[in-house]
């Protein structure tokens, strides 16, 4: 029987390599992303299933290339845009302003 279609995130049971026991202390920006997710959920601006849908909608190469909290902040952004809490225009302009303020070449 043919294997049913799987999303890229749906990896249970697939062949994979040895488990390396890696861990790191979370960076401040990662903790802030986590906190923002918790707060937005508690205030009714985001639901876990929206986060999941937006993470699972990432193209496979992006999913693999991005770090865990990069996937999260991108899913938070997508959710807030979909809900109209933020607009793409204001987010884009804000990111541009921050890059300039912090002297990050764009």
């Amino acid at each position, binding site marked *: 029987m043919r294997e049913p279609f799987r999303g890229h*995130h*749906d*990896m*249970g*049971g*697939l*062949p*994979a*390599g*040895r*488990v*390396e*026991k*890696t*861990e*790191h*202390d*979370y*960076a*401040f*920006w*990662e*903790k*802030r*992303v*986590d*906190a*923002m997710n*918790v*707060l*937005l*959920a*508690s*205030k009714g*601006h985001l639901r*876990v*299933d929206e986060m*999941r849908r937006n*993470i699972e909608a990432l193209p496979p190469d992006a999913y*693999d290339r*991005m*770090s*865990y*909290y*990069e996937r999260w*902040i*991108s899913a*938070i*952004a997508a959710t*807030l845009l979909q809900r109209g*809490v*933020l607009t793409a225009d*204001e*987010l884009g302009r*804000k*990111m541009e302003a*921050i*890059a300039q303020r*912090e002297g*990050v070449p764009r």
Partner: protein
Amino acid sequence: MTDPLSAAHAHPHRHPPRPDTDDTLGHYQIMEIAIRELLIEKGIVTPAEIQRAIEAMDARGEALGARIVARAWTDPVFKARLMADGTEAVRDFGVDMGTTRLFVVENTPAVHNMIVCTLCSCYPRMVLGLPPDWYKSRNYRSRAVREPRGVLREFGLSVPDDVEVRVHDSTADMRYLVLPLRPGGTESLSAERLAALVSRDAMIGIAFARNP
């Protein structure tokens, strides 16, 4: 036992942050700052709320889970409540599971439990804090449900063939916590000393509780 890769890898101690984190601003770090500042400008969140949420998550971890396990080992009434309704029982420790439910799975001489989230990273974070990287890795998520004994061996844990291994695949709504087997020879130990034997990894099910 100082090998950082050993299953007995004890906590708390510090791991180095990833080198690519706070020193240079990447695209997604800029996105984080932008979203945070916009949400603050719009009055949706405050800086103090973010700080409090970070501190609350930092306060959760192995020590909290270990206290719950030690109580279950020493208080049969609490253990019965914990097994019947984990979500409700952990309120005794100030843990609010929010929209999720907690299911405690008990190791016995005949059954060893371990937890995974094949789809993403669901984890009993309200008890144990944020998950370690390996829990979220492709290799663990893929293989834990297909060849758990092989994965456990890679963590240095050998579960005898006559012990059944049960793997619990977490979801956004259902979180699992392993109640490890109480080590022998600990009958006279206080709950506080028992808690010191319980590691995060034992509550994920990739290690046993330590012997005293």
